[in-house]
C-alpha cells in the first residue's frame, strides 16, 4: 500500500495478523455479550475474521515457503505485525463498539484499495473478503446509530473514541488514513479528536497475554499432532 518496493508478504502479514488478533478479541464476547444477538454477532464476526486471516496467511505462506499455522502460531509476539488497536483486550461495550467501527471502517478502506491491486491474487482475495466485510460494517454502523440516538450513548461513545483515537490512527498508512478520516467524520456526531498515531510494531503487554493463550494448545502438543 505504501509503494511498490514493499514486499508482498509483509503486507499480507499485516492484514492477516490484524484479522487473527481482532478475531480472537471478538471471540472473547462469546457467552458474555450484553444480549444473545450480540453474542451470536460477535462470534460470527470472529469466525469470519479468522477465516480471512487463514486465507491471507496461506497466500503469504506460499511465498515464504511455510504454512498458515506456522505463521499464525509459531512466531514470537514481537514478530506479529498487527496494529495496536486490535490488540487491546476486551473492552467495555461502548469501547468495543468504538473499536469495531474504527477498525472495520479502516479495514474497508484498505480492502477497497487492494481490490484495485495489480496483483491478481491479492485483488481476487480482497474482493472475496469484502463481500463478507460489508456485513461487519453494517453491524458497526447500526450500533453507532443506536448509541448516537441518545445523549448518554453519544457521550459514552465519544469518550471511547477519544481514548482509542491514537490507536485507530495507527491502523492505516499515511496514504490511506485521510480516506478513512473522511468516512469516520461522516458518521460521528461529534468532532474528531486530535492525536498522534500509535503505529504497528509498538506491541503492548496485552498482545503477549493474548499470544500466551492463543498459542497454548499449539505449544503444548508436538508439531504434527492430529486430533
Amino acid at each position, binding site marked *: 500500500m505504501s509503494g511498490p518496493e514493499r514486499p508482498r508478504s509483509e503486507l499480507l502479514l499485516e492484514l492477516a495478523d490484524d484479522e487473527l488478533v481482532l478475531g480472537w478479541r471478538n471471540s472473547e464476547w462469546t457467552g458474555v455479550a450484553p444480549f444473545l444477538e450480540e453474542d451470536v454477532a460477535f462470534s460470527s464476526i470472529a469466525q469470519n475474521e479468522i*477465516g480471512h486471516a487463514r486465507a491471507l496467511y496461506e497466500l503469504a505462506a506460499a511465498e515464504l515457503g511455510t504454512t498458515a499455522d506456522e505463521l499464525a502460531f509459531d512466531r514470537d509476539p514481537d514478530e506479529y505485525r498487527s496494529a495496536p488497536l486490535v490488540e487491546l483486550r476486551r473492552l467495555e461495550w461502548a469501547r468495543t463498539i468504538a473499536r469495531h467501527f474504527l477498525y472495520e471502517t479502516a479495514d474497508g478502506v484498505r480492502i477497497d484499495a487492494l481490490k484495485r491491486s495489480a496483483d491478481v491474487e491479492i485483488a481476487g482475495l480482497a474482493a472475496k473478503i469484502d463481500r463478507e466485510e460489508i456485513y461487519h460494517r453494517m453491524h458497526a454502523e447500526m450500533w453507532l446509530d443506536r448509541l448516537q440516538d441518545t445523549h448518554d450513548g453519544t457521550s459514552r461513545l465519544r469518550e471511547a473514541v477519544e481514548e482509542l483515537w491514537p490507536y485507530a490512527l495507527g491502523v492505516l498508512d499515511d496514504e490511506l488514513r485521510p480516506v478513512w478520516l473522511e468516512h469516520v467524520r461522516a458518521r460521528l456526531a461529534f468532532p474528531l479528536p486530535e492525536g498522534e498515531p500509535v503505529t504497528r510494531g509498538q506491541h503492548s503487554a496485552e498482545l503477549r497475554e493474548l499470544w500466551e493463550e492463543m498459542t497454548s494448545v499449539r505449544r503444548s502438543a508436538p508439531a504434527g499432532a492430529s486430533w
Partner: protein
Amino acid sequence: MVTSERVWEALAEIPDPEIPVISLVDLGVVRDVDVAGEHVRVEFTPTFLGCPALEVMRDAMARKILELGGEPEIQVIMDDSWSTDRITPEGRRKLRESGFAPPSPRSAGTPKLVQLQSKAFRCPYCGSLETRLENIFGPTPCRSLRWCEGCRQSFEQFKTI
C-alpha cells in the same frame, strides 16, 4: 471411464454439510470440471472463508471422484467468483422448502442494511411479507435471522454475498 458428465452427477449427490437439503452443485461451489484421462480437476469456489464446512466439502468431492475411479485434484479458487447468485433455482426452491429464505439477487446491488430491514423477505413457512430482521448474524456465517409477524416464528435468511 470417467467422464465430465459422470463427475457432475456424482458431485450433485454430495449434500452441503451444514444445509444438507441442497447439494454442492445446487450451492454453486463447483465452478468447473475438467477430465483428462483418469485425472479429474475440479475448480472449487468456496462460500465464506471462515466456513468450517469447506474442508468437508473438498474431501467429499475428492472421495466421490476416487469412487468413480478418477484421480482427483480439487483446486480451491480464492477469489470472488462464488456469490449467492450461483445458487441454482432448484437450490433456492429446496432452501425455501426447508425453512430458509433464499438470498436476494446481487443484481439489486451491494447488500444494504436498509434492504435487510425492509419487508421484502417472504416467510418460508407462511409466505407472509410481514417479516423483520432480528440479527444480521446467525448460527453460521452464511445466515441472518428474521422474525415473521404473520406466523410468529423466527426463520433463517441466507445472506446475499
